[in-house]
């Protein structure tokens, strides 16, 4: 894993990038995102098992785009998110130096097509814990699921950590912030929370790269990632498409097949 840090150093020192976005030691045993813009800030970069955040959330930010070309230390989830962002035309192809890290190996990628090829080498696997949680939800009956989510969502205070940590939630003007007309109540009361999480789930169905950062970000521990990951899995089961795998936009909900199969429309 030192290799990625070594390469990041070279890129910055040779002036090929203006900043390196990676991980650094944080409070206690935590890891945090770290921007190194001068050689002196490179020493803080670390790469280990505790580095999990999807750093792609930063690459669409105006403040980060203004830095110039950035090298990103990219785990598989970050790679998928970057590819999806390029497919959605939120990121110019070639605007990043991608230091792809997979099981300790490092590969430098500089284009959407290179990312697509690289990601095709290894199948995307849902982690065991989320898989089990989704199965638990599936096993509940309708009333139990309603009770489960109502209890969980009652803690939501609409801090929007789940939205803001999501690489795919890049809209400058989120539908949550629209008030003419106002679809979803601003207040974090029962109906406001329910509708917010339904809308978030629908907006990410077919676009979610399944990093789980939304769930990790929640300060009050609501497993909101099960909603988005669940919806993404639904899209995959129904239509065979996945977010973050194609350089050309492959969004399941902006296309159709005449023989799409369902059994509930009368």
């Amino acid at each position, binding site marked *: 894993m030192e290799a990625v840090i070594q390469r990041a150093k070279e890129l910055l020192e040779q002036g090929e990038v203006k900043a390196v976005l990676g991980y650094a030691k944080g409070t206690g045993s935590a890891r945090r995102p770290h921007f190194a813009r001068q050689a002196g800030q490179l020493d803080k970069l670390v790469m280990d098992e505790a580095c999990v955040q999807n750093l792609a959330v930063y690459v669409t930010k105006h403040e980060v785009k203004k830095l110039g070309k950035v090298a990103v230390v990219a785990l598989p989830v970050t790679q998928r998110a970057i590819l999806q962002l390029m497919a959605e035309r939120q990121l110019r192809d070639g605007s990043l130096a991608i230091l792809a890290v997979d099981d300790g190996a490092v590969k430098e990628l500089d284009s959407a097509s290179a990312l697509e090829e690289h990601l095709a080498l290894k199948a995307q696997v849902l982690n065991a814990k989320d898989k089990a949680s989704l199965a638990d939800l599936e096993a509940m009956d309708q009333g139990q699921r309603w009770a489960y989510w109502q209890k969980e969502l009652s803690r939501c205070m609409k*801090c*929007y950590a789940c939205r803001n940590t999501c690489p795919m939630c890049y809209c400058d003007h989120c539908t949550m912030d629209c008030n003419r007309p106002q679809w979803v109540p601003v207040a974090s009361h029962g109906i406001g929370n329910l509708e917010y999480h339904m809308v978030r789930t629908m907006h990410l169905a077919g676009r979610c790269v399944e990093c789980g950062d939304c769930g990790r970000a929640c300060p009050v521990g609501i497993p909101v990632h099960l909603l988005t990951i669940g919806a993404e899995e639904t899209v995959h089961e129904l239509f065979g498409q996945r977010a973050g795998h194609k350089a050309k936009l492959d969004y399941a909900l902006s296309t159709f097949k005449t023989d799409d199969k369902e059994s509930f429309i009368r």
Partner: protein
Amino acid sequence: MANTYNLSHESLKGLFGSLRRDGRRILAPVDAAGRVELGEVEAPSQVAADYLQTILSAKEVAFPKVERLLSYTIAPGRVDLKDAEPRALPTVLFGVRPCEAKAFGALDAVFNWDYRDKFFNARMEQLAVIGLSCTKADEACFCTSVGGGPADATGSDILLTPIEGGYLAEVCTEKGAAIRALAPDLFRPGNGVDKAAIAAKVQQAFDQPALTSQLPGMFENEVWADQALRCIGCGACAFVCPTCVCFDIQEEADPKKGERLRCWDSCGFHQFTLHASGHNPREVQGARWRQRVYHKFSYYPERYDMLGCVGCGKCTRACPVDMNLKEHLIEAAGVKA
């Protein structure tokens, strides 16, 4: 001047009973599936056994995340307006940390500044705080840098400090004395315990008065944009903060009826200062982060003669990207003008 007593574990159980017989609900940190949050309890055994702090602050007891201010109905030719009455239940907040107890003062400064907020005040009048001194701290804590301490009694009506067999109980206010009066026999004469020896050791991290005096001169310093580069602009820090007091007023209405709600808001949000014209005086996250620091460490002292931060570290623990406030303040304090 505080009167000091001894309160045994057994006596505390009795005190909980007395408080409940007096018609008060007791809110205390409870363990909810690994998270420590405030919950209603009947006996000390239900209080979380081992906790540093709750995730959320206790502010929601006096300043809930959503509260109704008024409601109305509209009929042809008339509008019937109804003021909401705050649901203020007699409440004892048990086991909150000294930093959080102190934080109610910062809320009070705003809610009773140029206007007396009836909702906040009604709840505060019904609220008594039994604080609990800290015997441990973590890397996010910095109470001693902002004028507090792990055994500081400010804001507590009664402050308990764990000792062998029970607690040292300092009755600090009239509300505290009223609680003692419910069961005076439970409070035994206290001995000369050295609180400081029991309390957690929290090193002073930075020179706050110096920081406050240099902040006006470093508004344009690039340190704020640098620190905010990894901030994702959510409201987690503000919503868990015991002193963050900003709110939004929302009208939820249809043509026949409506209600006005007060909801928590955060200066970290892009929309917080967005004008109707489209202009945003705090266009970038660096400006919003600076506002957060300045409000707590410059504008609060200037306006209310107190700090808007108690050093509890909740924001640091809640932050999805590990924005460590203590670390950032140390860095800001180290900036040479």
